[in-house]
């Protein structure tokens, strides 16, 4: 990407600049724990060495008359010691116009990313490349690392895969369903509570295999069950609705560094009669199987794409568009789900790099009425479930982890 290059935001990215604010930061964090203390100057050098290979990150956000756009950022990215809480808002004005932020603390490297830039997959790749380069600068012997960066440079990293795949797919509208919301006493703005639960991937895998479900389905079921059990009076007119992001690269060949994901929703009606866990597990698993199909995801995504391509939408000035998007998000965005569960899956690195890494964590930012979110990622037999909460209550997390430990799993907790 050179100094003249610019590109419009992809379909999902378009919503984030409009809705993000102090409450809804639209920021997620991926962090990595190494075996030794971080050297800040080398980390900064590594970030700036790797950045040119990740053009989707080396950008700044600008306003046009009709749309936002990204253009090349000439500044260097800076690295600071961790301050504040994970997923706090990234202030581009004080961050050399960058919309991602590297920070470090003891032996941990954090990467906070504004969601308009990229999704979890893109950010993990970026983080992996930076860590590889950092370890290299630290004088560690790494095999096969430089090839990884070579690949990152060559593939069509800047493709808008939404437009590429879904422009001509017939659309299907998503029904508007108001979901149940977890309430509580709000923490001060920007002070997010993070609770990590570290599980052994193998023992969880054995457990889910015995139930004949996937790890995502199992964790989603436990989460839905926890929300149900901790619901005041177990009564709600609205269903529990989990929003589960799906990586579309799994179904549609794409090497993009930009966003390429879609949400699927899992609905659990709150019935008067008591559910047992296995019923919920079955409900969740069935819905996941029927919805996690390329045709279903394509039709749902295409609906938003066609809304974006509408000539009236396009010709509306950005200010009005932002206002409209905020209203729409309030009504049919955040109200329609209870909680997000994002499973990044297993993160793989080359063995020589992996030898220096202890674990990865992922965290999601909250929104004004969605006070609890959950992200999962695993590395080297360590599966980390991270809850981010903007309320003081920890009922759901407590139920969730107690349930899992009740299944005979060893759980190690960590909090911020």
């Amino acid at each position, binding site marked *: 990407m050179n100094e003249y290059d*610019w590109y419009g935001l992809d379909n999902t990215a378009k919503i984030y600049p409009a809705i993000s604010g102090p409450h809804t930061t639209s920021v997620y964090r991926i962090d990595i724990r190494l075996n030794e*203390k971080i050297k800040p100057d080398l980390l900064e050098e590594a970030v700036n060495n790797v950045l040119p290979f990740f053009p989707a990150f080396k950008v700044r956000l600008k306003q*046009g008359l*009709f749309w936002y756009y990204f*253009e090349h950022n000439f500044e260097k990215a800076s690295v600071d010691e961790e301050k504040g809480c994970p997923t706090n808002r990234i202030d581009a004005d004080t961050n050399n116009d960058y919309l991602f932020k590297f920070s470090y*603390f003891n032996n941990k490297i954090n990467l906070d990313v504004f969601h308009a830039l990229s999704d979890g997959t893109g950010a993990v790749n970026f983080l992996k490349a930076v860590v590889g380069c950092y370890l290299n600068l630290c004088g560690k012997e790494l095999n096969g690392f430089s090839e990884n960066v070579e690949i990152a440079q060559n593939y069509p990293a800047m493709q808008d895969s939404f437009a590429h795949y879904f422009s001509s797919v017939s659309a299907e509208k998503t029904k508007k369903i108001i979901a149940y919301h977890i309430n509580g006493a709000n923490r001060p703005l920007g002070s997010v509570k993070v609770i990590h639960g570290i599980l052994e991937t193998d023992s969880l895998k054995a457990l889910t295999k015995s139930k004949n479900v996937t790890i995502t389905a199992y964790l989603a079921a436990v989460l839905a069950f926890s929300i149900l059990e901790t619901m005041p009076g177990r009564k709600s007119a609205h269903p529990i609705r989990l929003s589960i992001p799906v990586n579309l690269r799994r179904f549609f060949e794409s090497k993009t560094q930009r966003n390429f994901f879609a949400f699927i929703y899992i609905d659990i009606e709150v019935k008067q009669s008591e559910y047992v866990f296995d019923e919920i597990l079955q409900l969740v698993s069935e819905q996941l199987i029927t919805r996690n199909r390329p045709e279903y995801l394509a039709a749902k995504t295409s609906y938003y794409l066609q809304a974006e391509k509408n000539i009236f939408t396009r010709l509306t000035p950005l200010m009005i568009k932002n206002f409209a998007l905020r209203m729409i998000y309030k009504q049919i965005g955040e109200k329609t789900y209870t909680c997000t569960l994002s499973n990044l899956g297993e993160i793989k690195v080359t063995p020589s790099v992996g030898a220096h890494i202890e674990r990865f964590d992922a965290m999601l930012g909250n929104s004004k009425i969605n006070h609890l979110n959950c992200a999962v990622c695993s590395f080297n037999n360590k599966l980390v479930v991270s809850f981010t909460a903007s309320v003081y209550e920890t009922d759901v997390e407590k139920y969730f982890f*107690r349930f899992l430990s009740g299944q005979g799993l060893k*759980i190690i*907790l960590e909090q911020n």
Partner: protein
Amino acid sequence: MKYCNECKTYVLGNGQCCPLCFSKLSGTAEENIAEAYPEKKELPRKYNFILRLLLFLSVAAGLICLFVNLLFWSGLLWSLIAVTVILLLWETVGLMILSKKNIGWRLFAQMIAVLLVSITVDAVTGWKAWSLGYFAPFVIIASSCAMTIIFYIKRTQWRENMLFQLIISVNGFIPVVLYLCGLTKVLWPGAVGALYSLLSLLWMLIFFDKQFKNELKKRFHV
């Protein structure tokens, strides 16, 4: 590692309570473990005495001027000049020194502020239109020069700076238009300003045509 007997979970770190149920943990913390997160310090919001003092002094000065002006009325509302100058000082400090915004934007805003003050002074001292006739063209030329220098110094922000150079240059034609409408009485300063603006526009179009076209395309893409 510490252990919570209620939740049946292990807990990392030096905390005394379980993060889930807040009951007391048993066991001892593991040795040599690096804390994962910085300690949360709830800093009380800094009480900025100097800022408050300056704010009070400026409001007081404005009010005293207005009071004296009205009490000993001499047919001239000079207190308005004092108030606008105080506002200009605040704007200059806030925008030119403290703000993190793009330099081109700050320069443009400063230019507008200075012009507004000059128009106020002109209006209070019995409108002779010198603010628009003489002052405005030269302020615009000066801003345009400054913008050109910034354009070459601050190369990483040339895209914004080019846009503000364009905006300032377009403003350079306003004094001539005002003369043609009969609002000002003198032509030559405005004409000099317009010539300068025209030259700087031409300079941009000839030397940076590609960048210019690209910038417009970006800003107006549908």
